[in-house]
Each structure stands twice: as structure tokens, then as C-alpha cells.
């Protein structure tokens, strides 16, 4: 294969990219543009969807306390989940890094494998575990840690536990990827220069894997902010998050324009957060990324 020269002006590469381009243009770009247009339409029970260009939906989403609560809950929850995932995922990745290769590949499979299992199945597991008569409650009562079953279903705690479980492998993966690039000789060098294990960790390892920790947290955060299945099953209708609200507007209330405005705000907020975060991280860690 191979072009004759890196600056060839042939049309071949465009031809080769055309099928993928068409798929993405038709099934990604066009729908996103349509949903944007839809969000400026209006809706009433009586008249249904009315075409037009009005900001009503955005005004409602951005000023109504109900939506404030839902957005605050969603992003607050996502933040907490990202934090917890970082706190438990980073040490776990480091422990994996220090394991003998055979154990390491086995446990990598155990920890990353669940990413291939449907989110629904994993959420279901938590529903079983956390239910009123679930195993966690039985254990708590049996151990005398609680005198009555604790309600986890339809609580923030339940949603957070389940989502941490669903998303923490992404964090481990991100940190693991940056640990793999770490030269083992550097750690050994630190130790040989008289640094304690802890000092090596703090002064040599952590700074080098910081990009991995930060990008892992970002991934977990954005996925948590747009999560649908887990909050909707464990959180139910009482603890609505943005994705569940959009689902209800579309499939229950039939208020598509409002739903479209909600997801547009979600998309814009996510993109803005991602870009701002990347910007801040790149500025701070410019040397490490080079």
C-alpha cells in the first residue's frame, strides 16, 4: 500500500475515509444537529410539538429549581464518584503494578473483565445485594451493626456504591496505563539513593502517574454524569439524575423539546468541563505530558 510520497495530492485517502465519514455524518452529526433544533421548539399537552425558534426550554432548564436540583445532584454525585474511584482505584492499580506478572495478569482480568459485562447485570447485582432483604443488610444485622435493615435502594448511597463499582475499572485502567510506562529502574534508583519506600512513592511514582490519575478521574466523572441504567434502577424515580429526567421527558411526558434542551445542556456542560479540565491539567502538567 503506501503512497508514493507523504505529500501526495491523490484523492485515495478521501475515498477510503468516505464510508466512515458518511456513517458519522448521517448517524452522528445530523441527529445531533436535529436534537439541537428540536430543543428550540415548544410543546404543550394540547398542541404537541410546535416548530419555532424559542428559548423557552432553556429558560425553564436554567431557571427552574427542579432542574437546578437535578443538575446539582447529577454533577455532585459524579464528582463524589470520581473522587472515591480515584481513592480506591489508584492504590489498587499500584498494587497490581507491584505484583508478580502471573498474578498481575490474572487480577487485571478480574478487575477489567467486568467492563465487558453489561452495566445492567452489574447494577442488578447491586440491587440484589442492597435490597431490603439483601445480603448486605443481613450481614449488617447479623453483625449487630444495624438493628433494622438499612434502606439502600432509592438512596444516594446505593447509587454511588453501584456506580463506583461500574466505573472504577476505568480509573484502574488509566492509572495502570501510566504505571506501565514507568521505568522500574527509576523506582529502584530512588531506593538505592536512600529514599524510603514511602518517599519513593510520594516523590517519584505519584508525580509520574498523575496524568493517569487525572485522566482516569475525568473519564469516571463524565461517564457518571451521563449514567442512565444504574441511577434509574437503584435511584428510581425519587432520585432522578439528568439522564433519567431526559428519558422521562421523551418516553413518558412526550415533551421532546424539553428533553432535547436537557440533553443539550448536559452535552455542553460535559464538553465544557472536559475542555476546561484538560486545559488546566495540561497547563499544570505540561512537562509530564511531553
Amino acid at each position: 500500500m503506501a503512497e508514493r510520497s507523504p505529500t501526495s495530492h491523490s484523492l485515495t485517502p478521501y475515498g477510503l475515509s468516505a464510508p466512515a465519514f458518511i456513517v458519522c455524518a448521517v448517524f452522528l452529526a445530523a441527529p445531533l444537529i436535529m436534537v439541537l433544533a428540536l430543543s428550540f421548539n415548544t410543546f404543550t399537552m394540547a398542541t404537541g410539538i410546535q416548530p419555532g425558534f424559542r428559548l423557552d426550554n432553556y429558560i425553564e432548564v436554567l431557571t427552574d429549581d427542579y432542574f437546578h436540583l437535578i443538575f446539582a445532584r447529577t454533577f455532585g454525585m459524579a464528582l463524589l464518584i470520581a473522587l472515591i474511584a480515584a481513592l480506591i482505584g489508584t492504590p489498587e492499580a499500584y498494587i497490581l503494578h507491584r505484583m508478580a506478572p502471573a498474578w498481575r495478569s490474572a487480577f487485571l482480568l478480574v478487575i477489567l473483565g467486568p467492563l465487558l459485562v453489561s452495566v445492567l447485570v452489574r447494577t442488578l447485582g447491586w440491587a440484589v445485594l442492597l435490597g431490603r432483604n439483601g445480603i448486605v443488610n443481613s450481614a449488617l444485622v447479623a453483625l449487630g451493626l444495624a438493628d433494622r435493615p438499612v434502606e439502600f435502594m432509592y438512596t444516594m448511597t446505593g447509587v454511588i456504591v453501584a456506580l463506583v463499582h461500574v466505573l472504577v475499572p476505568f480509573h484502574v485502567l488509566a492509572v495502570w496505563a501510566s504505571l506501565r510506562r514507568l521505568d522500574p529502574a527509576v523506582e529502584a534508583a530512588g531506593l538505592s539513593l536512600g529514599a524510603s519506600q514511602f518517599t519513593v512513592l510520594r516523590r517519584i511514582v505519584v508525580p509520574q502517574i498523575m496524568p493517569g490519575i487525572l485522566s482516569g478521574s475525568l473519564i469516571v466523572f463524565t461517564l457518571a454524569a451521563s449514567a442512565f441504567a444504574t441511577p434509574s434502577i437503584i435511584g428510581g424515580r425519587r432520585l432522578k439524575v439528568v439522564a433519567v429526567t431526559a428519558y422521562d421527558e421523551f418516553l413518558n411526558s412526550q415533551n421532546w423539546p424539553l428533553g432535547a434542551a436537557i440533553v443539550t445542556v448536559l452535552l455542553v456542560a460535559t464538553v465544557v468541563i472536559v475542555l476546561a479540565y484538560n486545559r488546566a491539567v495540561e497547563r499544570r502538567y505540561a512537562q509530564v505530558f511531553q
Partner: protein
Amino acid sequence: MAFLELSGLIKRFGTVAAVDGLDLAVERGEFVSLLGPSGCGKTTTLHMIAGFVEPNAGRIAVDGRDMAAVPPNRRNIGIVFQSYALFPHMTVAENVGFGLEMRAVAEAERRARIADALDLVRLGELSQRFPRQLSGGQQQRVALARALVIRPDLLLLDEPLSNLDAKLREEMRVEIRLIQRQVGITTILVTHDQAEALVMSDRIAVMERGRIVQIGRPVDAYENPANAFVSTFLGRANLIRAEVVGRQGRRLRVSAGSVEFEAEGEAPDGPVTVSIRPERIGFVEIGGIEARVKVGLFMGEHWLYRLDSPLGELTLCQPNTGALPIADGQAVRVAWSADNARVLHG
């Protein structure tokens, strides 16, 4: 007209010119080495000849025919890559037969030619192996057989020996040279190993920063280096900054520090560089210049002495005759004949 002619070849990557106005003419059946330091544009030149890389400017002609519009698969050029580039999913025989298959050579003839080619590189019994089951030297010979079997008009070898150990490398040098003579094929060898270039080539083209700075028979290039770069790149050389103080034809009188001596070459009055090969300097009882041995290094078949002298540090090479070496720190006298002191251009 030469068989292969490169004229004014230029190839830029971004703003840097990897090949910068290269001219070269190779006669039919000739073996020419492109010798130069890493990054001087050797591989790029080869890839332009093979047609993988399009030059920004210049002309490539084979047998008088302009190659610009000819794609690589129609050039009938055999190439051995630095990485061998064997097809990992094909056996040795399939690798060697690939070019014949593309030329729609009939099955029976194909088999015979594959066998011949493998015999030529002495790999007949390994034809059913896969590349990963072969040693580096064997892989390299498969690559050679694959390139030769199509009876190419031109054979291009890109540092084919660089991955081999020293002993195998020396054997393969001779082997490739013999095969090339036997088949009589026009060959260009890329290398940054001067010994390889000296042993194998009819002519050596020394490259520096995308151009050829000198081309000639190995002996000529070695004896009459065009400039300081060539003299240090082809073998070792003592380079002495000196001043021309007198002349008689090509015999110049130069002075360096407190010493005056005679040297061969052409230069205007003023500062010049004089090159003296280490093996052309000898110890003498009387005459010559005074020096002191800093250190003597044992190299097997010869001794290499580093000397302090009024001309600065000098390197001197003596065949190892079994005699006792000169001790470090000893005062000595050294001399050379005026023919062996070369005044360089530039």
C-alpha cells in the same frame, strides 16, 4: 550513458532536506556503496530509486529511461531492507516465490528458480520454515534470495548486515560480493560501516548531509580523501592545522606550531588541514619530530599509540610483530614520508 543516473535529486521532509541535490551515475554491473553517517539521507535515496518515495526535484533514469512515472511494482528492482521485511505469514519458499508469482511465472519454473535462489544463498533445506524460525543471518539471506530471484535490473541493499554479529557479518560481506559478481547485477549498497564499503565496492560514494562529497574506487577515496570529513570517516586520520609557507609543484612546505614539514597537494598560501594516516607514521631513531607516548592500546593485529607532539596529539599505528611494545611515557621520534601527508581542501 551510465546504467543508473541520479541527477539533482532533492527530497525534503517538512523543511529539512534529507537528500539535497544528489548526483550519481552507476555503470551496468557495478557495485557502488553509499557510505555516510546516520541521517545523511542514504535510505531516503534508496527509497527514491525504488519508487517508494517521490523526489521533490531531480531525475532518476535506469538504462536511459526516466522512472518518474513508473510505480515500484513496474521498476524491476530488487531491494533488501535493513529490517529484512520478510513476509511473516509465508514460508521461506513462499517469500522467495512471491515476486515470481506476481510475474505469473509458471509453477514448475517457479519451483526451480526458488530452489536455485535458495541454493545460491545456501538455504535449500530451510525452504518450508517461517521467518520467525530463522536466525538473523538466515533471514537476511532469504531477503537476498527474494530480491535476486526476480532477476532485477538493479539490486538495492540497505544496511543488510547491520543486525549480524561481527563474524557472520564478515562472512556475508564476501558472500554477497561473490553472488553479485556471479550474477553480474548492478548493485547499490547502503552502509555506515566503512570497512564494509571498502571490502565490497567497486566504487564508494561518501555522503554527508544529503549530498555525495566524494566518489571513487575504495583505494582512491582512502588515499586521496576530498576533505577532512571523508578522511576521518574512511579510516582514521591525524588532522593537523598548518600554514603553507612554500611550494614546489604539488609538494608544499607547511608549518604547524614549531615544526615545518612537506606535504602533498594543492592549496593557496594560508591555513590548510593536513591529513596523515596513523599507519603511515613510523618510529625512527634519528630525524623526524620528537614526541612522547601517552598510551599504547593493544588492538590484536596492531598497536595504536597516542602521542604528545609539537603538532598536538598524534595517533600512530604499528603492526603487531610480536616485539615488545613501547612503554607509556617514553620519549620517541616519529616520521612520515611527504607523500603520506595530504593537504585537504576545506
